[in-house]
């Protein structure tokens, strides 16, 4: 079963580029609605992976146009989805804080998401995946997938 588990890391990286870019733009323009938009895309993409907007842009525009080459490797999709859900939750909390007038907390959370997405994009370290595998090792229900031995 595990042999069939594949993840296109180019789709994940494209997703991160959009998240970083749009949240940075939201900060510069002081536009909480853009934060809400990013949070919505991330949360929807976590619940319905096929509806993930930034990944769809990769699949239907960037990849067919040859702008981004696929990088499909043996991996579990669940930790990446969990990481996106975690990022989406922080981004949603950021929006709520901004709406409540707590701009320091709001933009602080947005920057946290930017930094964590940046760590994954540039250094290949996925914080959310680390949390997922830690919860798996602790036997927390729902976190059923162990790290795959690379083939």
């Amino acid at each position, binding site marked *: 079963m595990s042999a069939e588990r594949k993840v296109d890391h180019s789709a994940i990286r494209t997703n991160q580029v959009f998240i970083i870019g749009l949240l940075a733009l939201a900060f510069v323009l002081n536009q909480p609605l853009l934060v809400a938009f990013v949070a919505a895309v991330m949360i929807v993409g976590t619940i319905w992976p096929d509806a993930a907007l930034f990944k769809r842009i990769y699949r239907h525009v960037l990849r067919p146009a040859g702008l981004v080459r696929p990088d499909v490797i*043996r991996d579990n999709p669940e930790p990446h989805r969990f990481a996106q859900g975690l990022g989406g939750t922080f981004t949603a909390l950021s929006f709520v804080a901004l709406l409540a007038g707590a701009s320091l907390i709001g933009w602080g959370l947005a920057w946290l998401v930017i930094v964590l997405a940046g760590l994954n994009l540039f250094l290949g370290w996925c914080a959310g995946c680390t949390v997922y595998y830690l919860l798996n090792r602790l036997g927390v229900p729902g976190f059923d997938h162990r790290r795959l031995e690379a083939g």
Partner: protein
Amino acid sequence: MDRILLFSIIVLLLVMAFVILRRWQLRRVARQAATDPLLSDLHPDVPTIVYFTSPYCAPCQTRQKPALRVLQDDLGEGVQIVEVNALEDPDAARRWGVLSVPTTFILDGRGMPHEVNYGVAGVEKLKRQLQKVSGGKHPPGRILAHGSHIGTH
């Protein structure tokens, strides 16, 4: 305008924090390089790549390892590669301050670290770094001769 300035300052601070962290890590490794067990069997005067990996690291197997293999094929005895399984040797990972894999360190012929790459480092990047630590003289002919060939892959 204020927010663009603030954004630039935050990005600059993050980049600075990264650079400082990287330097601190290299200094820390340099301090204990002379006695580190990983480097005890190295040939002197040959640049070294210390490559931290783990069996669960997919990019290590699909991208980093093939890149190192190409490099080894090209440079032959002009480079030595030390592969470390960070799960089997967590002490080494701790000594070298490795938090994620793949991580590669570039050492000069005296075993002093000069560069550290977090995440996958491609063949060309590794060649440039090796050329730098060997002062552009240790196998420069081979690096340049094969550089264009590898670039076509």
